[in-house]
């Protein structure tokens, strides 16, 4: 199968039947219990957290939740978390560390929410603290980008030991639309910007940003959520087997190195 361009991927992940983490959780985990709130401000429905059993072992699950229709999207703010969402994620990550269970993150967001309240409550600080905390977290972290990996809002759940993207997912520093309006003062040139930014899974793998690409059924994940879930399950299972071999020091050293080596410059 030939590599798809970024625009094709965007059409597939924008398909209204594209499965969300709500579809995958029952297919991947047993006994999922959602845990709510950041203990300071509120409960952000854009970022869901909980504990569950994965292949018989306890894990913590953190996930950005896209809606499958307008009502669901209103409820989850189109998967754009506020600071309290990231603070809930940090609370649950520390809890995972305490009880020595791995953290599994599902990323699917256009980005952290941009709004007055988000600024008042420190959106930037919340993301910065997430990057700090996950870089130091003394338990394995496995992340998957399900659809949209939008900028810092996605990165906050992607400081991990293993990162994979679904075949049609994208991961980008800025939305193609945003880039088009900065570059050409024309948001309609989104399609051109999408190609320029190199946001597809094969692009990210070639840059060493992700470890794996998870195959989707022909035409996209919506054609068989259960087959896609099987592939995600195999990736999580293999990744956990690999990283749990490491002791904590080795794990943290490898995680530091994974990000430390990214950068292209001359000197």
């Amino acid at each position, binding site marked *: 199968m030939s590599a798809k361009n970024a625009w094709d991927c965007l059409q597939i992940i924008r398909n209204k039947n594209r499965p969300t983490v709500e579809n995958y959780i029952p297919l991947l985990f047993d006994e999922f219990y959602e845990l709510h709130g950041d203990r300071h401000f509120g409960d952000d429905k854009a970022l869901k957290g909980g504990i569950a059993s994965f292949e018989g072992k306890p894990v913590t699950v953190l996930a950005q939740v896209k809606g499958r229709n307008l009502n669901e999207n209103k409820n989850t703010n189109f998967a754009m978390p506020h600071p309290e969402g990231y603070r809930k994620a940090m609370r649950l990550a520390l809890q995972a560390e305490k009880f020595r269970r791995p953290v599994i993150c599902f990323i699917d967001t256009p980005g952290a929410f941009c709004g007055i309240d988000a*600024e008042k409550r420190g959106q930037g600080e919340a*993301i910065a603290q997430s990057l700090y905390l996950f870089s130091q977290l003394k338990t394995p972290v496995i992340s998957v980008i399900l659809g949209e990996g939008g900028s810092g809002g996605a990165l906050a759940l992607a400081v991990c030991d293993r990162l994979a993207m679904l075949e049609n997912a994208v991961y980008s*520093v800025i939305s193609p639309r945003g880039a088009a309006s900065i570059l050409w003062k024309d948001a309609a040139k989104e399609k051109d910007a999408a190609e320029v930014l190199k946001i597809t899974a094969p692009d990210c793998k070639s840059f060493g940003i992700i470890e794996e690409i998870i195959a989707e059924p022909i035409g996209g994940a919506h054609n068989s959520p259960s087959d896609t879930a099987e592939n995600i399950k195999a990736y999580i299972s293999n990744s956990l087997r690999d990283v749990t071999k490491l002791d904590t020091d080795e794990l943290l050293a490898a995680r530091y190195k994974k990000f430390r080596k990214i950068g292209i410059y001359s000197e």
Partner: protein
Amino acid sequence: MALENLFGLVKERWKPTTSEATEKENTEAVKGTAAESEAPVVPVAPSFKCPRCMQTTPSDTFEKNLWVCPSCNFHSRISAIDRLRIFVDKGTFIEFDKTMTSLNPIEFPGYDEKTEALRKKTGLSDAILTGTASIHNIPFVLGVMDSNFLMASMGSVVGEKITRAFEYAGENGLPMILFSASGGARMQEGIISLMQMAKTSAAAARYSEAGGLFISILTDPTTGGVEASFASLGDIIIAEPKVLIGFAGRRVIEGTIKQHLPEDFQSAEFQLEHGFVDMIVERKTMRKTLRHILRLHGFGGVKNVG
């Protein structure tokens, strides 16, 4: 007295920028940076119009006032070289990674030409200077971002230099002082630039866990991926008065909410009120403040209690 000295320093810079006398007084490192491309030519505008209060100030008054608006106290943008001249002991700055320059990882159209032109225009290799310096003989590791270079956006070079600076500070038991100014991640380096947020934050985290003191100073503007990474991770976070600090761009938010935002939205004062900076410090007292904070942490002659 100290203030007069500062004015003297600044005046000196504005006299004969290219003369031998001025160049000789600069440190080797600063000289290297500034002189490499025949000294940055700063166009002398007849006056400064403050973007905050719209008042006009004659440029010589403005310069004497350390590029601070005398009407409203807005601390305007200044070059990294000027910052060094104002804040660190003369002749103490030794630059790291002087020759590190960006490549074009995603083959972004026009990026090579743009950075090449900026290197020539600003005399900088990229948007940050890092190195060691001292204030009142107290040594530390320093990073100073310069908004003249692609709005000091963070790409591979900025990310790598900051990471190395944290690592050097950690290995040598030195405090870390970083003057941030940035539009955010550097779009022209695509996903590689996003990863610099994780890389620099992980370096800041390691340094902090090892007991290092990190003073983060937010200047105009500190936004986007820089505000959402190392700049927000200081043990002590200081802002210059009236500067812009925030995550999302003002226009992005206005576009979402379809209404005009208040003038002071995302100002240093707004961030102080909401609990995201420790203090607002004026340019003319920054040196003294930094000296005191360093001393309170056991650097420069005062021992930690216990």
